[in-house]
């Protein structure tokens, strides 16, 4: 068998197997703790409960596997601590999905819509429109996603500018959303910021984390699993980590096998030419 030419259908089946088995059979693996995830947890632990946190649901169905568990873990922590949550986002699907999660958690934690969390829905917040929002949030938002005027939303009673919010958490499957908030929002009001991103998009945020502009980063499902461990509520990400582990190990094994065969082939060819 030529290890350099394994049929792609065999690879697909192997992947299906290593991802599928951990979903059917309960496998428990220890969850590591990276400082980038702990940074968000530690910051939220110190936030005041009278200032809202803006949670940006900048994700949709395509990145739900990673951003979904991240959103759930972050919302659980915020709502459990009684920190008001303002939801919005530049993805048409994200804010609604995040609100649905908040509504799922709210009854268990004794929280209600309008007082403890509010959804402003999809807003096209580029760096230009963002500079309008941060100076006068009620004037810019005007109504929530359910057409309730901001004057009737108790959560916004003491909120005027971004300075009245304690933190912005960007849960994003998109590129550039965190940079917009760091550049426009944080530079003006110096509030704390965190970013929860897909594993593939994470490297570009490390310079912001390293410089202290982000208090932490949740990286993909690994970050969500770590956060679930930090808040003491193992959920979807913890259950799915063995499946992701299996996929990563499979990639490594396939690359190693292929390269061993490649080296063997080079050695043989080299010998033949000599």
């Amino acid at each position, binding site marked *: 068998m030529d290890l350099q030419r394994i049929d792609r259908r065999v690879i697909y089946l192997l992947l299906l197997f290593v991802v599928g088995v951990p979903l059917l059979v309960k496998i428990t693996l220890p969850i*590591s703790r990276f400082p980038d995830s702990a940074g968000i947890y530690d910051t939220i632990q110190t936030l005041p409960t009278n200032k809202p946190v803006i949670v940006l649901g900048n994700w949709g169905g395509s990145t739900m596997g990673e951003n979904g568990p991240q959103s759930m873990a972050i919302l659980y922590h915020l709502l459990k601590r009684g920190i008001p949550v303002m939801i919005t986002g530049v993805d048409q699907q994200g804010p609604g999905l995040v609100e649905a999660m908040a509504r799922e958690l709210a009854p268990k934690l004794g929280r209600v819509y309008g007082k403890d969390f509010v959804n402003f829905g999809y807003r096209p917040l580029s760096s230009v429109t963002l500079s*309008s929002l941060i100076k006068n949030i009620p004037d810019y938002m005007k109504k929530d996603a359910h057409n309730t005027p901001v004057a009737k939303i108790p959560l916004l009673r003491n909120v005027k500018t971004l300075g009245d919010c304690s933190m912005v958490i960007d849960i994003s499957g998109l590129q550039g959303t965190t940079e917009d908030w760091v550049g426009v929002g944080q530079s003006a009001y110096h509030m704390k910021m965190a970013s929860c991103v897909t*594993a593939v998009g994470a*490297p570009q945020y490390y310079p912001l984390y390293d410089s202290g502009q982000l208090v932490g980063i949740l990286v993909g499902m690994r970050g969500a699993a770590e956060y679930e461990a930090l808040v003491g509520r193992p959920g979807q990400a913890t259950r799915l980590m063995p499946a992701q582990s299996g996929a*990563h190990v499979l990639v490594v094994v396939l690359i190693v096998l292929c390269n061993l065969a490649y080296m063997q082939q080079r050695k043989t060819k080299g010998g033949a030419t000599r």
Partner: protein
Amino acid sequence: MIPKKQLIAGITFLAGLYYLLNWLLPASWTGGKLGDAENTVGPFLQVVAAFSIGLGWFQLLAIQGRNLTQGPVSQRVNAVAFHLTFWTVLVVGLYVNVRPTELPNTAYAAKLWELLFNDVVVALGSAVFSLLAFFIVAAAYRAFRVRNLEAGLMMAAAFVVMLGQVPVGGWMLSWFPGGSAILPKSASWLMTVIAGASLRAIGFGVAVGAIAMGLRIWLSLERGSYFEREA
């Protein structure tokens, strides 16, 4: 009559000038008036963006309409699927969200909207994206050959990051004291120090390029097929 190109160049220059002055001038110089105007000026961008979405609609409808009437069978099937889903989502969405007051808001319509949006659009997005995993694994297997030292270093770094990011990486080396932290810590170091430094360097280059690009657009110096044709 003002030529189109000059009109676009004028509006672009004025919009850019406003934001440049608003950013650079201290608020005390303008009495805060420039900053206060942002809530009036900002929504213009949304209006322009809404127009561009509208133009996209018309273009899509025109292409799929042509495919439906003149295209080969395969394109007609795609066009039928497009029109079916497009008009269903549009009609149900408009009925549920912006219906005239005399029409009742039936629970069926709301349920149908929820079904279309949450259970079809979101689910399809997840399904399509998850297929990428299969292609990525197959592509990594086929393309990743250690032909030289650089490729070898890259593969070593990739293995450390891939295994360090998942619990199995810690578990693999947990047979000796402190071993479980080696791969996660190494992965973290690679991402923060090595990848972070190179991305910061790339970021500086991109920012300088963005300034140059911004100036070209602001002053309408950018050349392209649109401007050449419209001139």
